[in-house]
């Protein structure tokens, strides 16, 4: 684990992302059944924007959240811990 990382900040930002992604997933399941619901569509778009911003900030500071977002061209950060099942990763 990297000692230069601000773990409290990482954890707080990650929790915000988890909350936004949860909102998105929940409304996505609803939209599967009701794809023409305008209110749900609007909710999806609003939260999509916020989640996107938060993830960009997280990945800039703490490394990639998916294998497609290793933005550091000098280092393969994807493999750096903590992994999600570790206490420190939450």
């Amino acid at each position, binding site marked *: 684990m990297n000692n230069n990382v601000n773990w409290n900040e990482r954890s707080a930002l990650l929790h915000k992302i988890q909350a936004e992604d949860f909102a998105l*997933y929940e409304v996505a*399941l609803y939209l599967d*059944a009701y794809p023409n619901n305008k209110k749900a569509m609007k909710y999806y778009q609003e939260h999509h924007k916020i989640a996107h911003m938060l993830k960009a900030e997280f990945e800039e500071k703490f490394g990639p959240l*998916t294998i497609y977002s290793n933005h550091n061209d000098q280092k393969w950060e994807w493999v750096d811990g903590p992994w999600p099942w570790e*206490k420190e990763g939450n």
Partner: protein
Amino acid sequence: MWTYDKKLQYPVKIKNPNANYAKIIISQLGGPDGELAASMRYLHQRYSMPYDKVRGILTDVGTEELAHLEMIGAILYQLTQGLSPEEIKKAGMDIYFVDHTTGLYPVAASGVPFDMKYVGVKGDVIADLNEDLAAEQKARVTYDNILRMVDDPDVRDPIKYLRQRELVHYQRFGDALRIAQDNLDSKNFYAFNPSYDK
């Protein structure tokens, strides 16, 4: 295909390891109504599902179950870190430990290894969606039973979250059954196999 998100769907942060809790919660990894069975059930039922919206529901609920499988894995991993051989013996976890150490092997709490017999794929819209509605309720009951046995708030918090998701999935499968029946007529409203009897 699937892409891995390097985060849990909901945080798991358990301060105190506890082999007794791990012994019962492992049923949601490899037990009859666990998350492995749930994900395999929905992701394999998709192919014989003729309606797009229901294909979407099965894909997305099935994918969320994989995230829940990972949360259960994280709970079990954190509950079994730093246990002494004495603690493992005292909790009766020695009979698991002898074969798997503290690795995560999908079994029911009774010790029966995961079995695809827990997964119903009938290839029939009405049969499969009713299977799914029942499966969500059975998983909800298992989480209720875990909550009856577990006191630690660090463990109860993610378990309560998972219990709540079973209720939401039950709602969505209710929608799925309605969508399916909207596509059937009065002759086959209760029983039909559109993927086969075209």
